[in-house]
């Protein structure tokens, strides 16, 4: 066996192992019709009355997120992870977000609400736009009922790069929903200084918004190849972090 064959063998083995382990984590993959397309949802079922609908634009490859989903389902929180990019045959680039239709997002939320569970939405980075878009449209179509809330991790919702000395402009969808929102931001990112400004914008249509800073981590810490010790620790405890986030949102609903 020459070196090239050996390397090819090793690469194929690693990919196969990762693929099998990923499939093993999700207990069910359901395909639903969403707007003009079909979307595969990885479902991590649970018997509790909480359902967390995530929008990872990851082509089905979010290892940290899947482990977290598995852990949450063991604790009674059902998690759905639709594969949005594959559903629209889009590449994993930021501009792909515009190719994901609001109808598809709404259909997914509809499907989740049919379970009768309290539905929370979650996304990170620029994908948080999908949560706001889906929730806003869903609220327009369902005036007499509401979603339980949304967790936006490291939301990146600037319209353009902010100009020093000027108030930042946000994407049009910011401030269009009434959904209770919890913002999570890393301490070691300049975006933490924009959290109050973003909270203010998100509240414009009546959303109650809370924000929490996660100490000693950078943005996207759970996706980083160069994660430091603090980031590794928080990644391994992400299920706990999300449960605390849901607790804050529930507290908000109780007070209302």
């Amino acid at each position, binding site marked *: 066996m020459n070196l090239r064959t050996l390397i090819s063998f090793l690469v194929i083995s690693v990919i196969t192992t990762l693929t099998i382990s990923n499939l093993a984590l999700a207990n069910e993959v359901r395909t639903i019709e969403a707007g003009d397309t079909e979307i595969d949802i990885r479902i991590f079922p649970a018997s509790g009355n909480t359902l967390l609908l995530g929008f990872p634009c990851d082509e089905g490859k979010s290892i940290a997120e899947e482990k977290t989903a598995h852990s949450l389902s063991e604790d009674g929180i059902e998690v759905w992870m639709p594969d949005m990019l594959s559903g629209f045959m889009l590449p994993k680039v930021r501009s792909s977000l515009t190719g994901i239709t609001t109808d598809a997002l709404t259909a997914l939320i509809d499907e989740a609400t049919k379970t009768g569970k309290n539905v929370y939405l979650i996304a990170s980075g620029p994908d948080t736009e999908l949560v706001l878009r889906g929730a806003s449209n869903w609220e327009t179509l369902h005036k007499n009922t509401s979603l339980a809330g949304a967790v936006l991790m490291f939301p990146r919702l600037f319209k353009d*790069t902010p100009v*020093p000395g000027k108030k*930042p402009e946000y994407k049009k969808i910011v401030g269009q929903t009434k959904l209770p929102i919890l913002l999570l931001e890393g301490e070691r990112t300049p975006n933490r200084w924009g959290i109050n400004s973003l909270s203010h914008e998100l509240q414009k249509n009546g959303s109650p918004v809370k924000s929490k800073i996660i100490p000693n981590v950078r943005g996207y810490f759970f996706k980083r190849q160069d994660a430091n010790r603090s980031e590794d620790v928080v990644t391994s405890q992400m299920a706990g972090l999300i449960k605390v986030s849901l607790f804050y949102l529930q507290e908000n609903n109780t007070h209302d």
Partner: protein
Amino acid sequence: MIKSLSILVLSLCLTLNAQAANLKPFTANTPTPALKLTDLHGKTHDLHDYKGKIVLVQFWATYCGPCRKEMPSMNNMIKKMGNTPFKILAVDMGETEAEVKQFVKEVKPDFSILMDESGQSIGDWQVFAAPSNFIIDPQGNIRYTLFGGVEWDSDEIINKIKELAVN
């Protein structure tokens, strides 16, 4: 054909470089915010006291890759500004003194590093990304802003900033 392509590629590179080093004229009709902070040696710096000098106010952080990369060019910028009255005030964005001291030991900036653990100035100056830069003229007005890392010692930037001293 090859010659045309080469010219096209060269033009594109020059355009990208020019864009990277683009100081944006500050058009907001707002007064320059106050800035009074202490440096790593305990000395208080008040922007007001630097009237008569051109001042580069930079907001940066140790975790910001472009900030780390551009600091040597800021050291060189000081040399290239020559006799033009010029000062750099680099405001760290809310980190601890221990973190910043370690960074300074490694990167060795030749300019004042101001500490703002509370983040008060970051809000006052409407900074939402790092590095965020403000060029203040000798009269104390913000004349240019620049977001992102650049080579501060480029002739293009140096000449543009030096112009503020004579206007």
